[in-house]
């Protein structure tokens, strides 16, 4: 009689031991997992999250010289309502986005599809298209600035050969923004192309074989197979390039001089932010601009996330 309870006890003990082991096992797994991502999370919090919170706070302050500031409530946001420069920079940024993002995506899909074929010197072309990506934006801007120079630039020289007097590409307020857009598209194609290429290579060959058997032409194949199956990649690229386009700064900073007559018609939101934060030492207002930009990007990305259900196919 005595043996039985003992056995039960042992069994129960064993059971308890096992489940406890599993728990501690699980707990220690969590511990290690968290430990492993700590460096990344710390970086994220210190270098991204904390500055965002601080920027939000500073957007309610006004700055004096050398880091003194005082709380001014909603003043900066009220000031925005009357700031025509801000409105103009939003308009400039909108034009920039409307042109660079769709045209950039269209051209990079086109080139990716072409370079996905079996043609000679494929890797040479891929390298050529990718070169602008590994070049410093500042260097790109400098070279294009020389090409665009209205009196001594290559572009207007070539135009003069066929008897056309070229415009002032980066000084004419009506043209300058579009000159920048051309450079932006040119320098962005390579990066998107590589992403599209990997997307194209992920489409199973069997679909194409089946389509061929059914007698579909190449254009039909492109629209019925390639495009729908590429749509998750297109979605990813469009979100990333939209965010990137919202933050355009370096090209404008490098290509348009501070005393240029085209500055008002080219300055982007981030350029205006830079101007207030580092030139006019108006850091409170600059922070408010940054917060506004963050809000706009959030909203537009959210809209894209909703809309994607209508056109993105995940197999």
């Amino acid at each position, binding site marked *: 009689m005595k043996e039985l309870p003992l056995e039960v006890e042992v069994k129960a003990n064993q059971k308890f031991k096992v489940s406890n082991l599993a728990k501690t096992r699980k707990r220690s797994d969590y511990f290690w997992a968290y430990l492993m991502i700590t460096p990344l999370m710390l970086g994220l919090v210190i270098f991204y999250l904390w500055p965002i919170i601080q920027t939000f706070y500073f957007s309610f302050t006004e700055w004096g*010289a*050398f880091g003194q500031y005082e709380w001014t409530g909603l003043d900066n946001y009220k000031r925005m309502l009357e700031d025509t420069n801000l409105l103009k920079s939003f308009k400039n940024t909108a034009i920039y986005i409307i042109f660079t993002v769709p045209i950039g995506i269209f051209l990079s899909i086109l080139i990716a599809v072409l370079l996905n074929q079996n043609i000679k010197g494929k890797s040479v072309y891929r390298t050529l298209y990718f070169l602008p990506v590994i070049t410093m934006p500042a260097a790109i801007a400098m070279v294009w600035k020389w090409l665009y*120079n*209205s*009196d*001594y630039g290559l572009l207007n020289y070539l135009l003069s050969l066929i008897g056309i007097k070229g415009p002032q590409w980066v000084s004419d307020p009506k043209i300058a923004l579009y000159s920048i857009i051309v450079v932006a598209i040119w320098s962005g194609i390579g990066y998107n192309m590589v992403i599209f290429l990997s997307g194209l290579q992920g489409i199973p060959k069997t679909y194409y074989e089946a389509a061929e058997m059914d007698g579909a032409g190449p254009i039909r194949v492109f629209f019925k197979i390639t495009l729908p199956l590429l749509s998750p990649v297109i979605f990813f690229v469009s979100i990333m390039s939209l965010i990137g386009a919202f933050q355009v700064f370096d090209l404008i900073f490098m290509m348009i001089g501070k005393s240029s007559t*085209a500055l008002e018609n080219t300055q982007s939101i981030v350029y205006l932010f830079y101007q207030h934060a*580092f030139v006019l030492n108006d850091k409170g207002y600059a922070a408010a601009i940054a917060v506004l930009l963050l809000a706009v990007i959030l909203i537009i990305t959210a809209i894209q996330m909703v809309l994607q259900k209508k056109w993105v196919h995940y197999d």
Partner: protein
Amino acid sequence: MKKWLLLLLTVIFGLIGLAGCSDSDTTSGNTKDEKVEITYGFWDKKQVPAIEEIVKLFNEENPNIKVKTELTPYGQYFQKLETAATGGALPDVMWMNGAHVEQYAEGKVILPLSELAKQDNFSLDNYPESLIDLYTVDGKVYGIPKDFDTTGLWYNKKIFDEAGVPYPDETWDWDKLKEAAEKLTNKDKGIWGYAALMGNQGGYYDFIWQNGGYIISEDGKSVGFDKPEAIEALKYNISFIKEGLSPTQAQMTETAASELFASGKIAMMFDGPWMVPEYKQNPDLDVAVVPKGKQRAVAIHGLSNVIAANTKHKDAAWKFVQFLGSKEAAEVFAKTGTVIPAYNGTQEAWIQAVPTLNLQAYIDGVEYSVPLPSVKSTGEIWQYETDVLKKAWSEEESVEDAVKELTKKANEALSKK
């Protein structure tokens, strides 16, 4: 066991590494035999050779103070300083200009030097009084003058000879300048007679003074851009562009006027002595005094060396600043023809440094020179000048409308505390 050993070793080596760090920290104290490194911030690339030579001379006397130079182009220099000052990371010694000294002194980010100078018997009488005044805030001197500059009228002898125009001299006035520009402009060859730069020093400030106007009123509360004298001076300047005698504002932002001038596309332009190292390479170029308007006037300004208030090596920094302000250093600047040294009596050597050029023109200007205005909000006002006046320069707006906007913005900036 192995794991533990590895961990132990890591810890040990880590500690050694840390110890190494703290070790080097203690050596950077102020004991005589130990090495100290200070940074020297400035913006003009053309002065790098002269500065390197001065540092070398300095190291002969002070082998333990290593000077690290930090070059930042002028366009970003004060933005960088501002940010560095906010973060407490200023260079130990740096260049300062008249436009910013008040802001930096009042912000307590640079060190007052008067007492240090008194302590070490460092005489401030060796420099022109106007320059010491420029760097005196509330009775304390904050900067040791380094150089000064006025403006000269540079011209291309070859273009003058071809057009049969006599070279400019001290008899020239506004009418003569215009007349010569008309004769020198040659559209077929792509040569402009004059570059009507949109710059304040060596530009519209000088013209406004020559016309009897002022930039900032004596009580420091308002600007004089909207006064008739100033409007007339600005209009005279812009008329060169209107009449096709000068490249347009757009052309000058795409290709710097100094580049056009150095390559023989512009016959005349105003420029400072800091361009001597570049312009002396073209034998066609020479310089004369600026033409007179109703009266003679030319802007004068000078740079100085200042010390960051939070420097860790105050003694070393002060030693270096003293040396930078010494006759020896001034002579290096003079010899290389880089800038006009501020140290009294060394200017002659500067003139001799480039005998092919009439550098005396710059010294002649000192007599009737007007100091560049310096108030706390000078930097902000300069920004508004660029933003607003460029609309007048590109003929988008009339001069009257532009000065109205500029005056309003600048007066607001002046009234700020």
